[in-house]
């Protein structure tokens, strides 16, 4: 406890590093995954290619990917960009499937009704299909947020500073309190991101609030996974 009190400044600085590394992948993966997920659902051929690719990408372990990326894109080994790009790739790999599944879950009758009342394919996607797939997307994003925050720590072993640095430093110097502080801070940050997403979901999808009590188990289950 004394270590924590004496090093609050350090913990705070690493926390900020952590946010800088984890926020871009979370936002970017959503922006990239929506069009890709749409493409995956639209055509049979693209579905096979995109979903298989996403599955394989997701199977690639994170630490080796941090080492391989510099050779592929020419960044320095200790560049924070490696971590950001690698985690964006994981986020996309996970979200593409979620987006495809989410769009698929929109009732075919609803889709046809929207076309019947005059929606173009473009506006139907943005105003009918995407909002209705919203709860599924939100559940997926919650998983992405929590796993991204957790995976950022791995970057510490190659020298990219984050809350994970508290683990490597605490391990090398044998300070248990430092590792525990890192664990608590990481989990807290993950919970904060998760809470922010839930809040954003309530604001953006007010219609889910009423049925929240009835449908609650489904998103909870996905987020747990």
């Amino acid at each position, binding site marked *: 406890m004394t270590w924590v009190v004496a090093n609050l400044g350090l913990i705070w600085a690493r926390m900020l590093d952590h946010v800088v590394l984890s926020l871009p992948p979370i936002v970017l993966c959503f922006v990239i995954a929506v069009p890709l997920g749409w493409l995956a659902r639209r055509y049979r051929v693209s579905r096979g290619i995109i979903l298989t690719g996403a*599955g394989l990408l997701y199977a690639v372990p994170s630490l*080796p990917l941090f080492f*391989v990326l510099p*050779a592929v894109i020419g960044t320095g080994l200790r560049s924070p960009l490696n971590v950001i790009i690698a985690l964006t790739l994981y986020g996309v790999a996970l979200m593409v499937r979620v987006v495809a599944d989410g769009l698929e879950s929109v009732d075919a009758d609803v889709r046809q009704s929207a076309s019947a009342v005059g929606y173009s394919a473009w506006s139907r996607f943005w105003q009918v299909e995407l909002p209705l797939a919203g709860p599924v997307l939100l559940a*997926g994003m919650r998983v992405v947020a929590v796993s991204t925050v957790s995976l950022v720590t791995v970057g510490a*072993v190659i020298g990219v500073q984050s809350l994970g640095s508290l683990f490597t430093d605490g391990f090398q110097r044998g300070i248990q309190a430092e590792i525990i502080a890192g664990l608590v801070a990481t989990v807290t940050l993950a919970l904060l991101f998760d809470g922010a997403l839930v809040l954003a979901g309530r604001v953006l999808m007010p219609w889910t609030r009423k049925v929240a009590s009835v449908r609650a188990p489904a998103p909870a289950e996905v987020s747990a996974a």
Partner: protein
Amino acid sequence: MNLFVDAIDWILDPANWTGLNAIPLRLGQHLVFTLVTLVIASAIAIPLGYLIGHTGRGRGLAVTTSGGLRAIPTLGLLTLVALWVGIGVVAPYVALTVLAIPPILAGAYTGFEAIDRRTVDAARAVGMSELQIVRKVEVPLGLPLLIGGLRSATLQVIATATLAAYVADIGLGRYLFTGLKNRDYAEMLGGSILVILLALVLEGIFALIQRFVVPRGVSGRLRTGRTSSPSTSTGTSSSTLRTDRRTALR
């Protein structure tokens, strides 16, 4: 691309195929470590998951605990346990078993839950005992999702076993850390390529297994529920499960 050529040269270098740091030896360590971790985790998670799935009790608790466990960063758990028990293979075994439990547990109980209640009721109606229902109905029907959970756990352990080399002299991850220490990029990259290949090969094997364990007559069970009536409860739960299976990965 020159870097990749160096890495391939490193992998093919005969010097890296003999001695205490040989690639086959490291690969073997990695696989044995993964297998033992999975066996221990399965011995704990599968009976527990079946119990939760069959009785329907304790599900909320299981969801919360496994969700919480996933938020915990592996590196933190690994270093903390390593400080407690000392440098060596014990810390990675403990930390990785803890991490492998949630996906297997989820696979076990969601596998039971995905079964149509009418099927279970029918089994009970024809006079099967509870134990028979579990053994002859629920276990076979829940197998695809359980294998899905095992697949997630395996990939997670393979990945984290690499990280385990940070606290123990074990597995393919050693190449990454010695390379990092000696600034030998060919070794780091070569080691990374080996781990990635291993993960992809195992992913492929599991994809095949998963295809074969679906009992005849019910293959495509999840799909039909989904496409015919996506808005019904069957549709929602099956799409949730599909997400579950994929997202339980890390």
